[in-house]
């Protein structure tokens, strides 16, 4: 069963976001497990203005491809080059080394608590 990190909040599209400023964003283990082995990640560029709920990138696995949605509105201030170089990190460490990008948040989209997200996705909070 997929794990949900207790300290984060989540979008319905399976992105996680931490409580820091700027906020760090990644995808949940629920998403990683559903995708299978991730082989390619396209992230927004630093400086790009994101709008909550809109597509900002792409995650491709051997079996499928998924759009990446921004859970918040704001400017991208940093991206994780390590995960672009080694997309398998999304499978091995979705809540740590596989963070995707950081945003100076001006407005949040709708977010779920870890408990709510876990309940909606048949996952456990760890």
């Amino acid at each position, binding site marked *: 069963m997929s794990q949900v990190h207790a300290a984060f909040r989540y979008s319905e599209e399976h992105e996680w976001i931490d409580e820091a400023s700027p906020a760090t964003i990644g995808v949940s283990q629920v998403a990683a*497990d559903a995708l299978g082995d991730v082989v*390619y990640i396209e992230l927004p560029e630093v400086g790009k203005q994101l709008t909550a709920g809109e597509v900002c990138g792409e995650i*491709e696995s051997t079996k499928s491809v998924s759009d990446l949605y921004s859970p918040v509105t704001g400017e991208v201030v940093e991206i994780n080059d390590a995960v672009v170089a080694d997309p398998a990190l999304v499978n091995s460490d979705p809540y740590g080394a596989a963070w995707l990008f950081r945003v100076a948040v001006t407005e949040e989209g709708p977010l779920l608590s870890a408990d709510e997200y876990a309940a909606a996705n048949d996952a456990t909070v760890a």
Partner: protein
Amino acid sequence: MTEHTTEQAAAAPKHTALHAEHEKLGASFTDFGGWDMPLKYGSELAEHRAVREAAGIFDLSHMGEVWVSGADAAKFLNTALVGNFAVTAVGKAKYSLIVNADGGIVDDLIVYRIADERFLVVPNAGNAPTVARLLAERAAGFDVEVRDASAETGLIAVQGPNSEAIVRAVVADDAQRAAVADLAYYAWTAVTVDGLDVLLARTGYTGEDGFELYIPAERSPELWQTLIAAGSAHGLVPCGLAARDSLRLEAGMPLYGNELGVDTTPFDANLGGVVSFKKEEDFVGRSALQAAKAAGASSVLVGLKGLGRRAGRGGYPVFTPASELTDEAPREIGVITSGQPSPTLGYPIALARLDARYAEVGTTVEVDLRGKRESFEVVALPFYKRGA
């Protein structure tokens, strides 16, 4: 007012006799042809690599097994299928197709000649009931019995460079070990494993050396466990349908439902070579296929190599490249039938049905990847060849 639903209750997915083994191994499951089958056990990339570099074991018990027996068996198959089975020696296997009267492919099959008057026909899981029914219908007037043994037959595949060593480790004695070593590709032999009679074929769907083992379904868990125990010294890992699909795609092998269907003839799928017009018997679809051959295929199945990192997937449209010399708008010239990033080769690969005029190796085309065009090149098939 009573609400009326036209939707039929979905039939419960079928389980093979190995389902409990897959659950023990932590498999995640997917529906395939009405069967609840392992998609992967852990990482599908690791499973794919294991088959290329060591060995993998697959449960294929969802596939069909139809026995054709009787004095007219070969003659009957020559009228029911496109191939010529009169020339197939006992002990050999042949890849074939069953088509309808219009020449459309109903299924692709492996046919084993078990004895002079006895054949084993192996259709795909989802098509097995249709194939069994069509064979029974087409058998009218022949001295032949058609028996669908799909439900009671188990099938386990061991694929990869170490598969011969693994199979040799489990068979009964030196004579059988020698028979395994000597077994040719697309041939079968009878062996015993722990007293269990096994029909052992050197066939597969991965592009590697490998074996397929037919046994009674209820005995398949013990054979599965024996092979896994013997395989541990040879890097054998259980593999799901995700790895099976990426392996067959790298090997350029068609999948029914993607590359093959009732709307495609063998000539549309580069499979004209399996159609025998020389055999004596008239066969279902013959006149339609002769016409199709004479007309020439307007579209052909080709291999595409992605020049970027993003992969094309089944259903994505293919276009002529935008030309800098003319203002001619890019034209849609085909569609991808299967595609994904190739785990072995490291770049995107795809099979595509293209306008025959753009099918030459080296041609650059563009694929619409969710709104953005990326360049792909027509390449020779297979994408991956072992030992190459």
